[in-house]
């Protein structure tokens, strides 16, 4: 199994399209950091405008933690597309290339093959989010220093500097779970077709549809929205509330994990039963 996972990782990382995600994040983070370098103080002022009449403020609220938080807020909605570029390709590309005939005539079970690909995909998701964390948090802290984190989510919250890192760890960790759900969906679609474009488009379509339906203020749709995985994906932001609603986070984590497990099981079942005609 380890051998299979290593082989799948080799195949993923030898394809140029895998690096689109890393490159895109690299470019975007640098652009955001550059923009904030010039306008970050103004952003802080706009957040704290209500206090400026009555308060003196000292210290550096514009720091690496703020930049990382803004990057996370800005990018997390767009990262799914970078995930599905790889997820949608994992199975479909074997069909397109005809390599199923080589791969599935080896003395390894189809369950192991589909599982190894799934695990390799999750590793890719993990590495992409780690890359995001390194660039957005690590590099930002090097460039802008650390300090208190100011956040506005319903109310203005300032976290003391030693109360920040674990929140980012939780947020990135939850983001990995969210993005793994996206990956699992694209992986499932990838098992159904023989062309990677279909799963990529289908997954993004599902995400967009769920997001739109969740936003429409109709009672019926609001009742449905807890069943959309997109509703739960956003709870990485709950780590930046005070107090943190752990119940909400755990419930969402369970929902997302359930989606991942269900999608994996369905994909594995279909893959094992599939006639390889390509």
């Amino acid at each position, binding site marked *: 199994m380890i051998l299979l996972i290593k082989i799948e990782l080799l195949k993923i990382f030898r394809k140029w399209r895998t690096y689109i995600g890393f490159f895109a994040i690299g470019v975007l983070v640098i652009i955001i950091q550059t923009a904030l370098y010039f306008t970050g103080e103004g952003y802080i002022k706009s957040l704290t405008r209500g206090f400026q009449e*009555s308060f003196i403020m000292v210290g550096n609220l514009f720091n690496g933690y703020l930049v990382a938080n803004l990057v996370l807020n800005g990018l997390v909605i767009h990262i799914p597309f970078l995930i599905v570029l790889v997820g949608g390709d994992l199975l479909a590309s074997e069909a397109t290339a005809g390599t199923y005939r080589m791969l599935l005539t080896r003395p390894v079970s189809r369950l192991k093959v589909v599982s190894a690909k799934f695990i390799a995909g999750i590793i890719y998701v993990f590495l992409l989010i780690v890359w995001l964390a390194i660039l957005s948090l690590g590099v930002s802290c090097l460039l802008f220093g650390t300090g208190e984190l100011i956040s506005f989510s319903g109310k203005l919250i*300032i*976290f003391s500097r030693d109360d920040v890192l674990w929140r980012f760890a939780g947020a990135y960790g939850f983001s990995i779970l969210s993005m793994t759900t996206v990956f699992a969906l694209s992986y499932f679609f990838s098992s159904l077709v023989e062309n990677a474009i279909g799963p990529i488009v289908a997954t993004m379509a599902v995400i967009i549809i769920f997001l739109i339906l969740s936003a429409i203020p109709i009672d019926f749709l609001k009742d449905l929205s807890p069943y959309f995985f997109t509703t739960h994906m956003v709870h990485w932001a709950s780590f930046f509330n005070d107090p943190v609603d752990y119940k909400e986070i755990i419930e969402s984590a369970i929902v997302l994990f359930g989606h991942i497990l269900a999608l994996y099981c369905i994909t594995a079942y279909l893959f094992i039963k599939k006639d390889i005609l390509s």
Partner: protein
Amino acid sequence: MGGNMKKIIWICFLISYIISAQTKDPLKVINGVIEKFEKIRDYEVDVNIKIDFSMVKIPEMNAKYYFKQPDKVKIDSKGFAMLPKQSVNFSPAQYLRGDYTAIYVKSENENNRTYDVIKIIPNNDSSDVILSTLWIDQIQKVVKKVETTGKRSGTVNIEIEYENEKSILPKLVKFTFNAGNNSATPEANKNKEEPKEERPNFRRNAQMSGKVFVTYSNYKINKGIPDSFFEEKNNLPQK
């Protein structure tokens, strides 16, 4: 003119004499506090700030600040700190800047202490402060309470506690902010020449209701802080 008229005049004179004897000179009262405060040439103190606003969550902050007469202030903090502007200078002289009218309102008793209540009204329309009311301890000659109403900042109540009767500098100051009262003053909203983002904002002002507790400890008074110390770059108060 008969004797009745003379009686009326004497009665009026007597009444006005009694009244004038009970109305103090507000400036004299305030200057009594200023004189006492001016015995302190400089000081440094550790402060702890707790903010309790409904729409705001900020952890306890610590800072150190330095004061030198007449109005040099420096604030040092390892991290972020947010202090009410009124927490840095306790001299009532700050309320007497520019052109103003001071009115002695009354003498008030509270908790077995008697306070002189004085209102200060800036005569300049460009001043942000509309009205300040000071409660000054008659015996201790320190400011015990201040209520300030500003065009943008709303009303701030400041309650000051001292270590003992001889203390000039506070040990605890409680600020109560209430922005709702004045957030929609016609004067403020009429100033259309201000950039839009500078105009008072209803939503932002909702954040400004709450309390701030500032605790002062480890005073080091009259240690001779040089002027150059206040010219250093670090930690000048943000505007």
